[in-house]
């Protein structure tokens, strides 16, 4: 039954190239995460305002991000906007797609976190003589961060996993793209992708474990 002979050595010889790809993958994930947090804060603020257009922008963004496939969002960033004569590189398209997705999910989490903190907290801060900004900064924000920390970790893991979708818009420098190119050269599909899988697994584990350590340090109450 097992006619197939595994050739791990041949595949493992390509490990350095794959690790280079892993660095790009991390890069995309981290940048998209930082940008995603920024946009998510912006969207959360939009939603808090009374302005209808700002509300509409935020709601549309969040609902599309949460209710369509991430791959669709990346296609939109690459093929969709091409209809307007805008042509992004695969790297940029992937980054835009994942950032869009991150921002949508995170904004929803931030809103939930904001809701979970009773108004009395902010008022208690102000009753101690703090300005609204101070009371938000020192009382509300730290509690929000605690509530949002786990969802943010999960989103970071998602961002890592989503980088694999870049290949569909022609990305070939990230871990998945590199693996796919190597596969085209060597046809050691199983070995190569198994190694890529292990690398992904290790990356996500490192992220979740270090997040847990950080959380234990940050949130002692």
């Amino acid at each position, binding site marked *: 039954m097992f006619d197939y002979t595994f050739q791990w050595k041949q595949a493992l010889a390509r490990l350095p190239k794959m690790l280079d790809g892993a660095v790009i993958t991390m890069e995309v994930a981290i940048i998209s995460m930082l940008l995603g947090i920024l946009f998510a804060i912006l969207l959360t603020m939009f939603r808090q305002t009374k302005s209808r257009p700002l509300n509409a922008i935020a709601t549309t963004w969040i609902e599309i991000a949460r209710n369509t496939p991430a791959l669709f969002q990346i296609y939109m960033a690459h093929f969709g906007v091409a*209809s307007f004569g805008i042509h992004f590189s695969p790297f940029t398209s992937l980054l835009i797609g994942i950032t869009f997705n991150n921002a949508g999910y995170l904004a929803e989490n931030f809103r939930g976190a904001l809701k979970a903190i009773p108004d009395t907290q902010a008022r208690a801060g102000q009753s101690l003589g703090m300005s609204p900004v101070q009371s938000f900064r020192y009382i509300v924000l730290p509690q929000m961060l605690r509530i949002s920390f786990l969802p943010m970790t999960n989103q970071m893991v998602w961002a890592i996993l989503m980088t694999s979708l870049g290949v569909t818009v022609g990305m070939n420098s990230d871990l998945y793209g590199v693996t796919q190119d190597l596969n085209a050269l060597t046809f050691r599909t199983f070995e190569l992708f198994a190694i890529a899988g292990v690398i992904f697994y290790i990356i996500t584990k490192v992220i979740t474990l270090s997040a847990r350590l950080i959380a234990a340090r940050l949130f002692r109450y």
Partner: protein
Amino acid sequence: MFDTALSANDLVFLAKGAGITIVVTAISVVIGTILGIIFGVIRVQLGAVLSAPLTLFLDIFRSVPLLIQLVLANAFVGMVLQLQLSGFFVACMVLSLYTSAYCAEIVRGGIDAVPTVTRRAARSLGMSWGQDMRYIVMPLATRVALPSWIGLALGVMKDSALVYVVQVTELLKSTQILITRLQEPLFLLLICGAFYFIISFPLARFGGYLEKRWSND
């Protein structure tokens, strides 16, 4: 934009893709949920230490890109085992396990949310483990788990867009094929996105509503 080359035949083609998306999702969610309940209950019953191997195994499905899971499964079945299984079968198999890994977490969370003292009360009335599970734990855990489960099912539908990699032409792949032919990416993508949105949005809202309602009492 309304001056399109899209024909009725193309629309049928897209609808077929949408049908595949729904069928793959439905099969995977059903099988994945059944497996997930079994895995979740096993994890609770055995405790963290004894169920560690199972936890580790399921963790793989949540830590490796689905695309890689599909490629690996396909390569393993086709190249290593040399079985002639359809891409559709492989897609459902992988997505079912993928679903079960997330579902097991949800089930575990639901069971853990039932207070020990409530379960003790049931056992102290002479109920067996099975009766406790059936009449006390299941109804209570379902309340906790249902909103997350709806989210999971919708997530699986969206993630099913990746099964193109094992040659299953679902909705997004159908769209892409038409894009290549008609060169109207924005219009076609909007149709495709609208389809996902129309299914996902109301259900997601319903899940959010349930969560809000049930967390209030």
